[in-house]
């Protein structure tokens, strides 16, 4: 009755894109030891190559050209290889590729060119991929740590600069703290349902005796504490406080990457745990999941606080930190909307579309900051944007595109994301939240358009340098933002068949 599982039972092939990347990271770690310091471009190229291979595999799987493995489950239900996983993989791999491109010169000129950077980035990416594919609470937690710990290190990568170290310390302490909440929450969920497998949790919730208030309470508290833990990762108010400090202190190339990757991971985990695991968890014969109310409250608070505080920021990195908080709020609307079973699929797709759009736009915006930042990490104030349109017309145009997209102006990817999320919210009868979303978007125009204004209508030096791979990254981001804005069906087609529901 107790047998050692054979390799073929594991269905490893189904997890091919993630496995390739994780193994690649381990191999590069060793290879890098033999790469001399002044030739780290080899590591960078290897990393980019590994990411590209994984990306191609993920794309093939997403478009159903190739089906890896045998069925959707691998590692005995621990890993789920469905369309959702594929799309999360594509988003995070694109982000990582851009992340490598923007990092290369930046590391060089700030004297941080070390091989660790690249494989820490790969480990984080692998963490996000496993998080998106999590079929078990244990995987959620392990993947979260795999995602987080390299990020703590990357945040402090600019040692011995104090700001960088301080932000790493803050991030680590608060991160560990919130991980504790998550573990406790997951444990309570386990206690209430007697299993850590998401599919079995779903079944257990379904058959949960209606009168069993004690189990319901455990599950409710468990979901709540998980929401706190993951809310920290995605920077939802009131668990957002680390964001501006960390974004400002960390090396900008790290921020460009983590501002998207950590969000993708956090939201993927939220969706897996809440939408896949307990969509049917309703109290008092309600029509929506029990966790929906808290989620939309968080969404509303996040949008309001993020946008309001962003208005008074005078540092670009801090401003974008608050903007990323605000965007977490918009995405949370989608998560909340998924609490209504009939909207669940639509809302899940909306979240993914938003993340895809956000990936291009936000990495792009941070890349522009990298271009204007000086070697000593100065010149990231708002004033550095003055007159950029005259000295660097293309760079300024790209930045304008990113800002318009972040505001959510039509014909940019940002609009498409907001459109789908708000649509899902309205379909889920969350109209007040959608209205808050629209109003705060108006508010956000205040600070995004101010940047455009400064670039085009104010005088200044507008100094910036765009060496080769960075320029590619900015170009790709801008083109992505515009293409998805003009041809939104590319995004919606990609996400069309995604569902998180177990049992068809």
């Amino acid at each position, binding site marked *: 009755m107790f047998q050692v599982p054979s390799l073929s039972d594991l269905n490893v092939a189904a997890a091919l894109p993630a496995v390739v990347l994780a193994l690649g990271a381990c191999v590069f770690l060793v290879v890098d030891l033999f790469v001399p310091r002044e030739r780290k471009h080899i590591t960078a190229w290897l990393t980019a190559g590994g990411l590209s291979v994984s990306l191609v595999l993920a794309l093939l799987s997403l478009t159903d050209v190739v089906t890896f493995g045998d069925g959707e489950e691998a590692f005995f239900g621990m890993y789920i290889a469905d369309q959702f996983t594929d799309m999360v993989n594509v988003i995070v791999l694109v982000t990582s590729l851009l992340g490598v491109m923007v990092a290369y010169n930046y590391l060089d000129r700030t004297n941080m060119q070390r091989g660790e950077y690249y494989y820490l980035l790969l480990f984080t990416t692998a963490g996000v991929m496993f998080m998106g594919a999590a079929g078990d609470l244990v995987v959620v937690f392990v993947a979260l740590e795999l995602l987080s710990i390299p990020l703590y290190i990357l945040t402090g990568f600019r040692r011995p600069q104090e700001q960088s170290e301080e932000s790493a310390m803050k991030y680590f302490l*608060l991160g560990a*703290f919130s991980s504790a909440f998550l573990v406790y929450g997951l444990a309570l969920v386990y206690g209430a349902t*007697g299993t850590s497998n998401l599919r079995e949790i779903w079944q257990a919730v379904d058959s949960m005796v209606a009168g069993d208030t004690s189990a319901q309470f455990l599950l*409710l508290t468990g979901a*709540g504490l998980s929401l706190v833990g993951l809310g920290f990762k995605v920077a939802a108010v*009131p668990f957002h406080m680390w964001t501006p400090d960390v974004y400002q202190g960390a090396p900008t190339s790290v921020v460009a990457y983590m501002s998207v990757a950590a969000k993708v991971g956090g939201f993927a985990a939220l969706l897996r745990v809440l939408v896949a695991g307990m969509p049917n968890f309703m109290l008092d014969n309600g029509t929506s999941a029990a966790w929906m109310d808290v989620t939309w409250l968080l969404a509303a608070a996040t949008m309001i606080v993020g946008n309001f505080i962003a208005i008074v920021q005078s540092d670009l990195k801090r401003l974008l930190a608050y903007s990323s908080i605000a965007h977490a709020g918009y995405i949370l609307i989608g998560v909340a909307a998924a609490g209504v079973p009939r909207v669940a699929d639509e809302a899940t797709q909306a979240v993914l579309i938003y993340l895809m759009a956000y990936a291009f736009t936000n990495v792009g915006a941070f890349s522009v900051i990298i271009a204007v930042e000086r070697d000593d990490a100065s010149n990231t104030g708002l004033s550095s944007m003055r007159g950029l349109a005259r000295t660097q017309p293309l760079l300024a145009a790209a930045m304008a595109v990113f800002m318009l997209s972040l505001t959510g102006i039509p*014909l940019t990817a940002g609009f498409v994301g907001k459109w789908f999320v*708000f649509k899902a919210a309205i379909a889920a009868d969350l109209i007040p939240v959608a209205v808050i979303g629209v109003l705060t978007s108006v508010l956000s125009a205040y600070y995004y358009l101010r940047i455009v204004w400064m670039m085009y209508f104010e005088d200044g030096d507008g100094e910036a340098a765009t060496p080769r791979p960075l320029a590619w990254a900015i170009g790709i981001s801008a083109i992505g933002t515009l293409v998805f804005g003009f041809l939104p069906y590319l995004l919606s087609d990609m996400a069309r068949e995604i569902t998180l529901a177990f049992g068809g």
Partner: protein
Amino acid sequence: MVTAIMSGYALSLAAPAVHRVVRRWSGWIIALLPAGLFAYFLSLVGRVAGGEVIVASYEWFPSLGYNLTFYFDGLSLLFALIVTGIGTLVIVYAGSYLAGDPWLGRFYAIVLIFMASMLGVVIADNLIALFVFWELTSISSYLLIGYKFDKAASRAAALQALLVTGGGGLALLAGLLLLGLISGSWEISALFGEAEAIQAHHLYLPALLLILAGAFTKSAQFPFHFWLPGAMEAPAPVSAYLHSATMVKAGVFLLARLSPALGGTDEWTALVTSAGAVTMFLGGFLAWKQTDLKRILAYSTVSTLGTLVLLLGIGSSIAVKGAAVLLLAHAMYKGSLFLMAGGLDHETGTRDITAMGGLARSMPVSMLAASLAALSMAGLPPLVGFISKEVLYEATLEDAVWPALITAVAVAGNVFVVAAAGLVAIKPFWGEWVETPKHPHEGPVGLWLGPVLLAGLGLFVGLAPGVVSHDLIAPAASAVLQKETTVKLALWHGINPMLVLSVITVGLGVAAYVWRERLGNRLNILDPGSRFGPARIYQEAVDGLPRFATAVTSVLQSGYLRLYLTTIVVVTVGLVGFTLASRVDAGGMWRTPDVRIYEILVAGMILAGALGVTLMRSRMASVAALGTVGYGIALLYVLFSAPDLAMTQFAIETLTVLLFVFVIYRLPKYATLTSRRDRVRDAVVALLAGAMMTTLVLIVTAEPLRSRLTPYFAENSLPLGKGRNIVNVILVDFRAFDTLGEITVLSVAAIGVYALMKLRLGQAGDEES
């Protein structure tokens, strides 16, 4: 159809280059495009007047069923002709008006973007496409108002216009979304047939309110009217084109377009009619109070927009026809007056009507155009304005709800408009000669061609209304009413109530003009808005926003890690505590405690230790107190007959204390950094968190453990693992791989720590030497 729009965008890209090549004649050359488009739309008149609707569709979003569709009917035709016709004249005009300006190329580009977007608004059939074009008009308006970007007033006005119309635009988006969800269709043409279903839906009112918010902000309806006069910072051709003839009418267009689907209900009538009536009156009154030429025109435009909205609110057949006529008439006379005002400003260097006089001699052509246009604005025969006013009164008299009140408001509004027309056309040109900053003479042909053409057209249409009634007005009205309509317009209908009202209006208007000075201050009471109005609210909001944001920041973003932690803990305690309070029956948790005296002793020891950790003044003492807590827990294990666990706990506790001592040996002494109040607050937070955790533990333990693992291991440890101690068997047998992994990880970590320490020691050595 789509080519017409795209050509505008395409030329806008090329416009700066074109301008650089042909400098002097750029206006004339660039105007060829709108002129060509005008001719193209003119060629469609026959088909549209015959009742045909031209439809074009392109795939855009096929998987979701969204298509880029265009729908060209009588209403679109009327607007398209105005947009391209005035566009032509304005571009020619701008070539002279802004000659020599370094940014003229950019100006052409934005105007062309605007023109294309506006065409998009009037011929889009898809709700989302409509919204996209709508926002593009707002953005191009923003750029054009801020054209003189070195002037602070210009920038502030541009921002104000953008915030108001952009904000309204987003409300519109939400409204259109609701509308699409209600009807399940994104094509406007498909909405027409579903009016009943839409109006019966419970989301009808929110959708209507949001859409009206969009339309009212764009068309400067009360209480959003304040941005339009501010927008007069823009150069004259922009004012004439965007803020009089076309963009501000987009809101009116939207109301007209959607009225078959949304209109006719009580809510629609009440909201639209009242907003229109208030705006009409207020706009007229404020126009009459101004002395700046362009502000007079701006407020009178507000008044006209109010009239249009009022007519659409009434929604009867005659009202809709009236709206169509007024739309056309207004585009002619107001466009002409704005361009003329720009010409006066250009030639004299001022726009203040009290600083001008007797210009008729030096600028006879402008005088002629201004007089014709002003007569039309005042509604005197034989101009087109007269006809439109007759139809207006006919419509208000037939209003189903309050004909008397609406008619009275309409007359009052028009009285002021008549007076305002006098201010614009009589004050500057007649009377005594007043010295102006520049010496005035007639400007170049580009400057007077537009006003003269438009004013002349007004006269021509007034004399021969048959030209437009069948081909333009009737199709537009049919499109709004969604049924075949015929329109007969004429100057003379015999003596009827409308004519009497017209005479009264003109009479009172003349009086208002003559006694303006004396009446002005007494009537201030009619406009309480100047002190407490929406403009003030806007200003407060714009100023208050950064203040508020700063305040929020200082509370929420102190930079102190401890405060961040406090926030997270408090929120968590709040959330969980709330659920606890609302969902859990506290009675079930309390089981009769069955405690022995030494349990209480041990618990007391643990508590004292915990308290000690927080209160001790020295690190060593704190660590020792912490150790007490750990040993207390070990004792508890002993008491509950788990000696193996107790042993582990003892070992770990000892090791931890030793480690702590080892580490803190080098740290500085404690210092008190927080105030007493902070510490009390922290203590409260800590107690709350502790209480929450305790309660959670109690609840969890109240739940019977449903593990499938314990019985499995109990049954199988002897037969499969050959051992009686289940824990041991699990560690070395069932989960041997895990144990192996743990050992490996620990060893690697130990090596890492050793390496770090060695590195550190080495560095210390270097520093010393």
